[in-house]
C-alpha cells in the first residue's frame, strides 16, 4: 500500500487571475470592430474566428480546475501523469517565463529535465505542470526535504 504524504488542490485565485490576464487579449481584439466600423465582411469573419480562438485560450486554464496533486513516498501523481523516484533529490523544479501570463512551473525528474521543448513536455509523462497548484513547492519541501 502506497503511503500518501500530501494532497493539494488548485489555487483558485491564481487560476482566476490567469484567466483574467488571458481575457485582456480577448477584450482588446473584441474592441477592434467598435473602433473600426468600416471593416468588410471578410475582416468581420476573421475577427470572429480570432475571438473564438482567444476565448478558448482565455478559458483554457479551467481544464485544471479539478486537478489534484498527490505526493506519495516514491512518486508524485497528477491525474494520469506520474513521476516515480528513488530519492526526492532527483526531482527538479523548472520555471518558465510566459511573458505577461506569469511563470509556468513544472516538476520533472533528472532525465526529463534534459528535454525542455513544448512537444517534449506534451509527450513526456515524466513532467508535471503544477503552475496552478496551491503551495506545491512548499509542501514538497516539507514532505521530502529537511528530514
Amino acid at each position, binding site marked *: 500500500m502506497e503511503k500518501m504524504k500530501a494532497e493539494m488542490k488548485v489555487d483558485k485565485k491564481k487560476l482566476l487571475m490567469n484567466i483574467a490576464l488571458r481575457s485582456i487579449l480577448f477584450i482588446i481584439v473584441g474592441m477592434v470592430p467598435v473602433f473600426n466600423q468600416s471593416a468588410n465582411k471578410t475582416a468581420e469573419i476573421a475577427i470572429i474566428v480570432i475571438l473564438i480562438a482567444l476565448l478558448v485560450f482565455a478559458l483554457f486554464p479551467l481544464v485544471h480546475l479539478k486537478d489534484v496533486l498527490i505526493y506519495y513516498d516514491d512518486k508524485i501523481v497528477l491525474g494520469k501523469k506520474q513521476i516515480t523516484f528513488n530519492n526526492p533529490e532527483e526531482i527538479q*523544479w523548472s520555471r518558465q517565463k510566459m511573458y505577461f501570463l506569469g*511563470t509556468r512551473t513544472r516538476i520533472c525528474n533528472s532525465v526529463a529535465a534534459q528535454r525542455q521543448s513544448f512537444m517534449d513536455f506534451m509527450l513526456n509523462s515524466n513532467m508535471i505542470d503544477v503552475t496552478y497548484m496551491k503551495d506545491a513547492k512548499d509542501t*514538497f*519541501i516539507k514532505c521530502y526535504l*529537511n528530514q
Partner: protein
Amino acid sequence: MEHPVLMFFGVFAVGVLVIWIKSLFDEKKGIDSPEKRKIEEILQKIMQENKEFGEYVSVYAYQREDHARSSRCWYYAIALTAEKMYVVPLTFGDKEIGHAKAVVIEKDWVDKIDTGKPGGPYYCIKCMDNNGKVILDFRLEEKNTKLDKTYPVNIVQVEEARAFMQILEQWKQK
C-alpha cells in the same frame, strides 16, 4: 505627449531609482534576515551530524547558467573548515527553504582553486581535481538581495565571505 522619448527615459529613471531604493532596504534586512538564520541553522545541523565541532565559516552561494531563452540556478549553503568543505544544495519554495544531503569535499581532493578577480563584492570560485575537472563551481556574493524568483534571498555576508576567501587562500597554498 510632446516628448515621448523624454517620458520614456523618465519612466526608466524612476524604475531604476525604485529598484535601487528597494535594494538598499533589502541590504538592511539581509544583515539578519530569516533566510540567513535558516541557512545557518541548516549548516549547524549538518555540521553536528558530521561531528564537526571545530570552527567553520558558513556562506550562501549560487550558480547560474544562462541559455538563449532560459536560465537555471543552483543554490548552496556552504560551510568551510580548514580541511573540509560541506556543500548543501538548497531548494527555495515561496515560504520554505529545503535542503538536500551535504556533499563533502576534502582539501586533499582539490588540486586547483580559481577564485577569479581579487577583491569583492563577488567571487567566482571553481574547484578542480587532479585532472583539471571542475568539481564545484559557484558564485559567492557579499550582498545578495531579492530581485525575482531567481534571486530569492536577502543575505548580507560581507565578513563571512571575506573569512571564507581567506580560508580558501590557505587551501590554495597547501
